[in-house]
């Protein structure tokens, strides 16, 4: 049989339509199948603990959602893979999308991995929601205007908030500043953001030393000695891995924590290891988007914290909230899109459209997705107290701020925004 050019083109168009992302016929066939969600989270190394927090929160959410009927009537099934190096994580992402055929990928804590994975997500056209890991450097260049990728709040939000609280509570009470921050983009940017904020508010100060220990350095005695030699009035530190409690222990032993003001915006990642015996009261301490002992927490958050304590004999930190926010957002977006289609399962493009601008109640409070696919969440920071039932510090007085007041608007340059933004101090 002779095949005309016209019929060949028609056949090609039909095949193309069937294989396009969010194919027209796929949803109807998939109605009975569970929704598969791929999780990429670190399970070993220095970020294993937050990774585990996120996975546990996701599992809790899945159990809860499935008991309520799943997502738009379909049960949820998790496929968990490890986030490790950028190369290996990209391979696992590809497997989740191509082989495991997941409907959505969630996770990612490391900025390095997130930056490398971003372009792959766009190329694969697979809806992906990051939990964390969006330090400013390189984001605009590597992932400009993503369509399929939804990113977490800017990592610098916590530095902006702690800067504002420092200015509010300690303005005029310090003249010299020292920094000890992890030697990668997160630590460098946080310290730079803190300095830029002090400059923005005209706070006269002198940076007497900046220490940059490599992530995971466990003998910090020489760094502590260098800080002590500089005699700062205030120390700013975005240490957040297992090196943080080690630093506090060594700093306490060296008498560094006695009279120095301490600003630690990311300490909440290690909160249960920040023991009272070496962590002072009155330290500015960030819990990011989940403070487990928040007396104003929602019933949902209280239920989660109770479950976490009972099940894991531990207390959750903010990565649990980020993970819950990701899966709750996906559920809300699918159901919103499904409702708009009279109950039929939506295509991926419909879910993406529904996500942008969506408001979701997360464990840590209000959250939303901006039109540029960046999250807005509620942040908690405050001053430490020993007055609690635990063997670690909690917050005595604290404040909550919404990301809209802490992160640059869509399209703006972070450093230029700091110079001109109207902050609420």
């Amino acid at each position: 049989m002779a095949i005309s050019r016209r019929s060949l083109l028609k056949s090609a168009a039909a095949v193309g339509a069937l294989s396009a992302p969010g194919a027209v016929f796929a949803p109807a066939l998939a109605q009975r199948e569970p929704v598969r969600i791929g999780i990429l989270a670190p399970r070993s190394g220095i970020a294993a603990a937050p990774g585990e927090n996120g996975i546990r929160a996701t599992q809790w959410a899945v159990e809860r959602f499935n008991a309520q009927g799943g997502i738009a009537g379909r049960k949820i099934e998790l496929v968990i893979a490890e986030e490790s190096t950028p190369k290996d994580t990209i391979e696992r992402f590809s497997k989740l999308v191509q082989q495991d055929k997941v409907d959505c990928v969630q996770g990612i804590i490391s900025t390095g991995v997130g930056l490398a994975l971003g372009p792959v997500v766009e190329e694969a056209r697979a809806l992906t929601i990051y939990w964390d890991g969006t330090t400013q450097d390189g984001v605009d260049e590597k992932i400009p205007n993503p369509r399929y990728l939804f990113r977490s709040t800017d990592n610098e939000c916590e530095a902006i908030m702690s800067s504002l609280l420092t200015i509010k509570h300690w303005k005029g009470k310090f003249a010299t500043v020292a920094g000890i921050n992890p030697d990668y983009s997160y630590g460098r940017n946080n310290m730079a953001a803190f300095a830029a904020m002090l400059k923005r508010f005209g706070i006269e100060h002198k940076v007497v030393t900046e220490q940059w220990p490599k992530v995971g350095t466990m003998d910090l005695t020489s760094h502590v000695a260098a800080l002590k030699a500089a005699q700062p009035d205030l120390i700013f530190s975005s240490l957040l891995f297992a090196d943080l409690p080690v630093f506090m222990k060594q700093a306490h032993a060296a008498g560094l924590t006695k009279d120095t003001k301490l600003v630690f915006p990311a300490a909440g990642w290690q909160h249960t290891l920040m023991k009272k015996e070496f962590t002072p009261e009155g330290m500015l301490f960030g819990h990011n988007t989940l403070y487990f002992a928040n007396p104003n927490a929602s019933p949902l958050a209280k239920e989660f914290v109770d479950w976490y304590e009972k099940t894991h004999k531990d207390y959750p930190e903010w990565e649990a909230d980020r993970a819950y926010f990701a899966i709750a957002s996906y559920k809300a977006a699918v159901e919103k899109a499904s409702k708009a289609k009279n109950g039929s399962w939506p295509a991926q493009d419909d879910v993406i459209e529904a996500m942008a601008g969506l408001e979701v109640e997360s464990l840590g409070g209000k959250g939303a997705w901006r039109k540029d696919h960046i999250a807005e969440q509620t942040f908690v920071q405050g001053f430490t107290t020993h007055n609690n039932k635990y063997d670690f510090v909690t917050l005595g007085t604290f404040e909550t701020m919404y990301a809209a007041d802490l992160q640059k608007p869509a399209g703006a340059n972070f450093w230029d925004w700091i110079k001109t933004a109207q902050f609420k101090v």
Partner: protein
Amino acid sequence: MIAFANILVGGVFHAAVLFLVAAGLQLVFGVQKIINLACGSFYALGAYFGITFIGYATDAGVSAWLILPGLVVAGILLGFIGPPIERLLRTVYDRDESFQLLLTFALVLMFQDVFRFIWGSNPRSLDSAYLIYGTISGREFSVPVYNLLVIAAAIATAAGLGAFLQRTDFGRILRATAENRAMAEALGVDVRRVYAAVFTLGTVLGTTAGALVVPTAAASLDMAIEFVVEAFAVVVIGGLGSMRGAFAGALIVGLIRAYSLVLYPELEVLAIYIIVIAVLLIRPAGLFGRPAA
């Protein structure tokens, strides 16, 4: 001056731990001519086991004052892994150095997975019980007594090793074996026994260093590789196979690191390797090493 003293003690503390690991490395290379990359794993093993050991001891009601001797005992107990590993290394004694490096690096990776299996992926640490020994402080100076005790332990180990190698019969046998294995064997020295003993001693130095440092730090899966790199800088500066070299190299690395953190923190790592390069260019055998014939 006070700041100088704080930095000095910080640097010497780091040097003390580095010396213990590097001494094990030097001893094994000096006698067995094996470059043992797994010395970092012994250090990590000591740290992990130290935490477990102190945990059990505390549960059994042992006084917190015994934390230091307890950790030394924990480090020594781990010496039992020395002989079987030395037995494994016998397969590569007469082979090219690259085989030795590959085998000992394989051990590093295997140990890492064993640690993950037994102690999990998360870093482990002790609470601040080590502060029970108190702190020596005055004006701006403040140093935990425990840190000074670790420094003293390293100095005592250096002195003890020196005396052992120079003044005991077994020490002479070790030196003779290091000097000329064939001749020592011809004179009736049981070289296999000597190798097993030396490797076990090297292992104990590493495990004890790890156990001693863990109360002030934490045990993590990456610590073996992190530390072995620094230990090799010590060995290159001091001279491969030389105990005095290990002592001097550790001090140089510890102090350079501590002072560069004060003067120009960005140079923390670079400063050490500038010295390494300078030594390799000016005195390739290291400060106390013997040039190859």
